[in-house]
């Protein structure tokens, strides 16, 4: 098998200078949130590790994750897929199609066995042996299992691949699920979000490409550097929450002033994502900054946690648990009061009966 080239070799081959290469490494260091002292390590990693092959497969999805990926600004999509990785298979960008394309997938899996990165976008449709998601004449489930076998690392891109996503929302008509259970004992980097932030998606690939290993993951397999904080804890509107300043309705004074959207149902307090720090489009905005409460799209099962407009679910005319709870408390109080009255009545009757029987008994004694 031919040796895969390193990032440095790739720079040399493409006629780029050592200076350009170092500059690229410096940019990557800061992208990955590492201190400048780490530059030499990044340079070393880029020089010595092989340029990775990426296979990107699609299950039940909307291609929003692909679209997000190609909106990355640092690294730019072109730099990433033409200079830093070899994206050998991807339904959105690859030139090929049909039979030769499927053959190319098989060849790539064999040629780079144990060495390629498998990126998975979309959920696995499990019902009916996978007939709800067919590609190349066979179920996606089969493609996933075949490609996962020889993968050095697997990246689950988007909430669909991580935990099933929109198609797995109740009643989950196609039995869709995240890929976790279908890839054997492989390590998975979970990159949830609907879709994930572009630079988070590319950042994960860059980390694997540079360091030759998965980025540090949290207990749910998510890269800590991107999913280590709740949006609420990194939100620029957090001071307004702490100060009790809220938007009470869309387009009210609080909404215009950019106050906290908690009362409009914001899921920031439950959601782990980089929206609050990296934000979208290089710090341009994120839903909260645009006045829209977070819907928690990086959370497993968030589709079943609606309505998004309320922090507590409402039960039609009954209202939410606070309304129901207050009602139950009143009802309970009334209930115990009634019970108390009945108890007093019961005791007085009981005492009367007892007194009567005492008298009878006393009479007999005499």
């Amino acid at each position, binding site marked *: 098998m031919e040796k895969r080239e390193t990032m440095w070799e790739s720079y040399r*081959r493409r*006629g780029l200078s050592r200076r350009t290469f170092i500059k690229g490494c410096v940019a990557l260091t800061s992208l990955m949130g590492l201190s400048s002292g780490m530059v030499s390590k990044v340079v070393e990693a880029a020089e010595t590790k092989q340029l990775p092959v990426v296979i990107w497969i*699609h299950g039940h999805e*909307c*291609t*929003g994750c692909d*679209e997000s990926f190609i909106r990355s600004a640092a690294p*730019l999509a*072109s730099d990433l*897929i*033409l200079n830093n*990785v070899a994206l*050998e298979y*991807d339904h*959105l*960008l*690859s*030139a*090929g*199609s*049909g*039979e030769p*394309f499927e053959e190319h997938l098989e060849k790539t899996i064999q040629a780079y066995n144990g060495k390629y990165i498998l990126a998975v976008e979309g959920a696995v449709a499990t019902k*009916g*042996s996978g*007939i709800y*998601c*067919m*590609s*190349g*004449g066979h179920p996606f489930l*089969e493609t996933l299992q075949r490609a996962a076998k020889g993968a050095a690392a697997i990246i689950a891109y988007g909430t669909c691949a991580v935990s099933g996503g*929109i*198609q797995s*929302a*109740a009643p989950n008509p*196609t039995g*869709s699920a995240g890929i976790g259970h279908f890839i054997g004992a492989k390590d998975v980097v979970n990159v949830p979000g609907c*879709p994930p*932030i572009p630079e988070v998606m590319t950042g994960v690939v860059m980390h694997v490409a540079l360091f030759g290993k998965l980025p540090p993951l949290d207990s749910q397999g998510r890269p800590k550097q991107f999913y280590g904080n709740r949006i609420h804890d990194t939100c620029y*509107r957090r001071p307004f929450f702490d100060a009790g300043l809220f938007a009470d*309705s*869309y*387009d009210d004074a609080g909404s*215009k002033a950019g106050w906290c959207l908690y009362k409009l149902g914001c899921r920031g307090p439950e959601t782990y994502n980089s929206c609050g720090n990296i934000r*979208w489009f290089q710090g*341009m905005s*994120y*839903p*909260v900054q*645009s*006045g*829209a409460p977070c819907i928690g*799209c990086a959370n497993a099962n968030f*589709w079943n946690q*609606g*309505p*998004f*407009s309320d922090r507590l679910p409402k039960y*039609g005319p009954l209202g939410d648990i606070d309304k129901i709870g207050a009602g139950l408390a009143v009802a309970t109080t009334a209930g115990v009061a009634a019970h108390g009255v009945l108890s007093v009545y019961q005791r007085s009757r009981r005492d009367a009966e007892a007194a009567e029987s005492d008298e009878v008994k006393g009479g007999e004694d005499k």
Partner: protein
Amino acid sequence: MKHVVVDPVTRIEGHLRVEMQIDEGTGKVIDAISSGTAWRGLELVMKDRDPRDAWAYIQRICGVCTTAHALASVRAVEDAFGIKIPKNANYIRNIMAASLTVQDHLVHFYHLHALDWVSPLEALAADPVATANLQTTVLNAYKLNVTGYPGISTEAYPKDFPKSTPQYYATVQAKIKAIVDSKQLGIFAAQWWDHPDYKLLPPEVHLMAVAHYLEMLDKHRELVAPHVIFGGKNPHPHYLVGGMPCSISMDDGNAPVNTDRLAIVDRSINTGRTLINNYYIPDLLAIGSAYVKAGRVDGGGLAKKCVVAFGAYPIEEYNGTTNGGFFKKLLVRCNGVVENFGTPNVKFIEFNQEDLQSPDTISESVDHAWYEYDKQGASLHPWEGETKEHFTGPKDGTPTMWKELNAGGKYSWLKTPKWHGKLAEVGPLARYIVIYQRNKMGLLPDPTWAEQMMLQQIDMVSKLLNVQPEVWMPTMVGRVATRGLDCQLSAEISKFFFDKLITNIKSGDTAVANMEKWEPSTWPKECKGVGVYEAPRGALSHWVNIKDGKISNYQCIVPTTWNACPRDDKAGHGAFEQSMIETHVQIPDKPLEIVKVVRSFDPCMACATHFYNAKGEKIQTVTTDPYTGTHVEK
């Protein structure tokens, strides 16, 4: 006779399979089928959800035309509740819709379609000096100097302009050579690069186009910045039933929209106009005219038979779709149907609210789709739509290993939508045909600036190609060309609505949301609504039924369902199949012409296969256990 399968068709959204019977002697396609091979069941997921959240769920139908379904959804729910959105919300939504169209068309042309026309391998033979000269020639000859929206431009000079130095093209060429030499072709792997179609254009065109492919890969992101400002992110920006969530305030630094934020939108709109006018349109027309000159005017699909469009961009806020308000204030009055375009029997029929509601006008059949109706052979209006899944497997192979699908039976997860019993094509081509024909027949009184621009575009392209619109439009090249024209138009429309937004804010109106009908207590017990939107890929419609504050039925008919649908026993082939049948294939084993014509529709399969079964019938399960064999559970 040769049976040829292309599965997966890539560089599209979702999972598509095409099969055809090709006469090897003549290269004629005898029969072709188009099959959507995935079904996600989102219509079932929509049931019992809060209608105010519908946009978030249904937007996830598609991440490529993200925003399209959210917009149609909020329009449908607002129609059901009778909500009139504020002026600003209408302008903002139109800016978002138009900037989606700009970005989506541009990405389609360069990244999803270009590699069917140009090849990085051909580019290796190009002379960089000649390519630089070609760039100049192309800008001189093919830049369409149409009169756009006559507003004031905030841009001093075009920030992105095609580079035409030999050094630049030599560098790009060296890069392509290095990639080819490394044998790691990456995204350029496994294409039929030796196909004769790639010889149709000179090597310099290939080099120029590949260079632009790379540049646009890094630029396109800037075109959807309005989504990030107004909706917080892209893909999948946020919407609001009753308006938009992005409050406007010139008094608050923290406001979602203030001058600083509007300046970002303005910059993005200007970038879009520049990229389209200086890259997309010249590249498109240079390549397209070469094909027309080579006599490649096939692949017309249903453009000559029946095209449908719903009308685009309400100029001002309107108070409903089912009551016709939407259709009265359109910037682009392409709400109509043109039958038999280019023939003496050509007909134009205006499309309006009655057509959306009449069960005779729009209906769907499932003759060849993996569903069944209670009444066999029936066609049902989406509001009465019913679906029982009925997966029948392929003609040859097993349910999980297809060799050949059953063209005579069921073979797709797409239903077959019909206009008065006829199959139709939708998309930018349909919009341009409708406007052109409507005007030609004198039925377009007082054309708006946008309609005038469209007519001018058609006229200029006809002069450039030196053929009549009736000849070049209903072809594959025409479909690709009108998409470019639509892109140019949409960039101007963004600018138009941006100016309207500024003017309105200037007048003191900063409202973006009408919250009168926000609380469920203000909703009728039962209601239904329709939302329509001319999405990048064509006429999109969402139907919603709401009962007791919850969605009881949600239906969509999306552009790709119109175009990619399986055949109908009475009405014949859908647009994909028809265009494949009309296409001449030079090498049956390498059906580049087929994937090219299919991609000329910009297929969005995930959009196409998600509707129906809002009634929640029990789904049949096909079990293909290797031990117990294949059987169907009821």
